[in-house]
């Protein structure tokens, strides 16, 4: 796909990619935002609490059943029939109902997958506001805060009741990966880990221990790290995208091997003696000279001595250059003092 476009100007592709990204982002935001519901009604818990209306006056089964129950329109009418007499239809209490059902239900409820018994918690002496924090000041049911899993587990821990997954989740267990871990999860999970999201679904630590990150990243090489990769492929890829290597490796990884093991391409006559192939990687050479590539090669201590009549004061480069009166140097001219090797 992309490789077929290699002849197309990369700049043009960059501009197109940027536009596509902006369009995709805008599309996502709009698509996501289109799901939000516009509504013309609201319900204030605060107003009702200030009138000394208790929780169980509306949620009749809050202390007697697993589900607290929602008020029926009849219950509301007991007060609102008179209160709403002069209100327009959209302001009457009936506007909060869809038929006989309260429109905004279960805003403070937990996910459908979670097992929760109101009755048990009431009987255990848990006050309503322990889970429904700030409900007495809540102005809009859609803004009703939900109990977080942290608050649940903290309370369970304090009261010495089970905190394992099965205590609340009939289907989620530590041994079974959640649905999000399918597909290309391996490729994108780092994004979730580093996002710092407080959503339960993004919390790695609920199932994974801290050492698991390093255990996998440091000891499990990618599939493409074959024997050929060890010898050739890694260098080719590193020259394209060194950032990719840096995900796991530091520079000491390269140096550790390459200080003693030259690249496989560095066989005899690599790149022919007179070209500047060394400078492709080892630039400048003036600092270390030959030892940059050949730290342990004894032959380099045995450089050919200067011919008779040549002294250390002579400028070798005056004659030993391509097209000069003498043959060019038989190796790369790294700018070193010739006398340091040629005694």
């Amino acid at each position, binding site marked *: 796909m992309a490789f077929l476009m290699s002849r197309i100007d990369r700049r043009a592709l960059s501009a197109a990619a940027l536009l596509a990204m902006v369009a995709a982002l805008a599309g996502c935001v709009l698509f996501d935002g289109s799901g939000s519901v516009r509504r013309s009604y609201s319900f204030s818990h605060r107003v009702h609490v200030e009138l000394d209306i208790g929780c169980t006056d509306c949620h009749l089964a809050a202390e007697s059943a697993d589900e607290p*129950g929602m008020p029926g329109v009849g219950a509301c009418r007991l007060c609102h029939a008179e209160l709403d007499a002069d209100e327009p239809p959209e302001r009457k209490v009936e506007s909060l109902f869809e038929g006989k059902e309260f429109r905004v239900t279960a805003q403070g409820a937990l996910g459908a997958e979670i097992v929760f018994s109101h009755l048990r918690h009431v009987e255990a002496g848990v006050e309503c506001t322990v889970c429904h924090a700030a409900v007495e000041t809540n102005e809009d049911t859609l803004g009703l805060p939900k109990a977080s899993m942290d608050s649940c587990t903290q309370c369970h821990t304090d009261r010495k009741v089970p905190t394992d997954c099965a205590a609340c989740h009939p289907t989620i267990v530590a041994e079974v990966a959640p649905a999000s871990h399918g597909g290309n999860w391996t490729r994108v999970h780092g994004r979730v880990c580093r996002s710092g999201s407080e959503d339960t679904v993004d919390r790695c630590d609920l199932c994974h221990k801290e050492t698991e990150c390093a*255990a996998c990243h440091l000891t499990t090489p990618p599939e493409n790290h074959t024997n050929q990769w060890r010898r050739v492929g890694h260098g080719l890829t590193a*020259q394209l995208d060194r950032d990719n290597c840096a995900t796991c490796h530091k520079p000491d990884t390269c140096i550790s091997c390459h200080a003693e093991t030259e690249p496989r391409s560095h066989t005899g006559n690599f790149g022919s003696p007179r070209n500047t192939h060394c400078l492709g990687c080892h630039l400048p050479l003036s600092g270390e000279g030959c030892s940059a590539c050949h730290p342990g090669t004894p032959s380099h201590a045995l450089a050919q001595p200067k011919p008779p009549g040549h002294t250390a004061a002579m400028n070798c480069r005056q004659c030993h250059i391509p097209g000069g009166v003498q043959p060019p140097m038989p190796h790369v001219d790294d700018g070193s003092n010739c006398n340091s090797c040629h005694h």
Partner: protein
Amino acid sequence: MERSLNPHAHARRSLPARTRVGRGEVFVLLLIGATSCRSALQGERELGASAALHPAPTAHLAPEPQPDGSAPSDPTQVDSTQPDSAPAAVSSDDPVAELGSSSAPTAATTQAATPTSDAAALVATTEGGLALSGSLMSRWRMRKSGSATDQDVYAVLAFDVGDSNSDPISGHFLGRLSADIDGQGDTQTQQVFGSLQDTYGDAAHLDLYEVSVAILQPFDAPVRVRVGRQFDYATPEFAHYDGLRVESEPMGDVKIVAGAFGGVPVRLYDATSIGDRIVGAWTEARPWTGGRVRADWMHLHQDSAPSDYYNDLLGLSIWQRMGAHVLLDAGYTRLEEEDRDVRLRATYDDGEGDLMVQAGYYRLLNPQADFAYEFDPFYATLQEYQPFDQFRLLVSKSLGDDLRLDVGGDLRDLENEDDENFLNHGYERGYATFVISDILARGLDLSLTGDAWSSDDRDIRTWGLDVTWTPDSTWRASVGSSYALYKYDVAQDIERDDVRVWYARARRKLDTAWTIDLAYEYEDDDFDDFHQITAGATWHF
């Protein structure tokens, strides 16, 4: 910053310090590990099946249920003797419903409540000690190519003692023992199988990745402290160091957190850390709904001959959730007196596993060269890193119940075309993975993956085919093949390497604690062909 005049100063740091472990000691360690694991497992089994299902020491069997089936009376537990089922649903015609429905649970709710009762049979407690959990993986690998053979063993031990989020004190360990058991030093073998591990010079080597102790709110101070060898993945560049890390608890409505760390950087393949140090500090907050911002400072001092590196990096990151499914994140770093890079990314995830779209942009703003290892983009081997723009796009889409397609692409454009050279490339890359689940039988999945890179003087193409059968949660078997073609230009000669790999792998989960695996791979490349067999066992505790 003080820069070395010599780009190869890194290399002068000579070979790494050796952790000497004799070959005999390796066997003894592996034997002790395996034996102790087995013993521990048997001991655990004697406790009963329920305990084995919850192997962490925090869970133990509660007293037997009462004869009437109710849970034992235990004032510390929520009373589970109450009926799980709620009153029957009331009819919508019932006048009571007009006054208020009890929203009686559905049958599903009633059924789902059962696990709570079962779970109540267990009493989770942290009394009497900290939870110990982790794994020990041991693996033997044999490779053969021509007349050369190589056998290695590896053991990776990872465990956590306690939970750093809830226990006052917790510990973490991750280490790997690797050993060449058949003839390190054989010249021919080394030429064929030489690897990073061989640079240590000994037949056996112990890598310590993490050894740390975390203290939660010491002396009731609202901080977390961690001391020892540790990682920090949240810093702009991963920090791996021996030292101390302090982090405050979230404060205020905007949940401000501040932290600092310092110590000696860990470089597993470096000869010495004498004179090196790393320090850093950060703060983050959630100042508005769905938003998080973080600022970082990192300082590296690397003691290298002939001169030292003193590098400072500043980072600023921001994350923003927009709605339920869109996450935006951006980052900027500044290294020394120059801007280093910027990163933008947008992710849409429907949360149902049906569609995920991720688009990213990265720009390296200035040439990078010759910094301390943690900031060094491999300068010693790959020379300067030239500025570029990079775009990334990834789309993952479910195409029905049994089909899934992931496609993506990268585009890198060097800022200056003249910088294009052997070690700095612009490139295009495209990849795709197509997965068909339950293709012929339940649990039989087929996946096809292709990946192609293209730049001015090299192309890399790979494809792979994998068939995995997972008949149940205990068995997993795979066969497949991958192919890679490398075309590149070395000194104007077009080189071409192709690699074919065939493999067969199987993994068997013996019980909740033990897993064994066996694999065979055959690799045929332009230089040699290789046979590789690996066998391993992993114990989770």
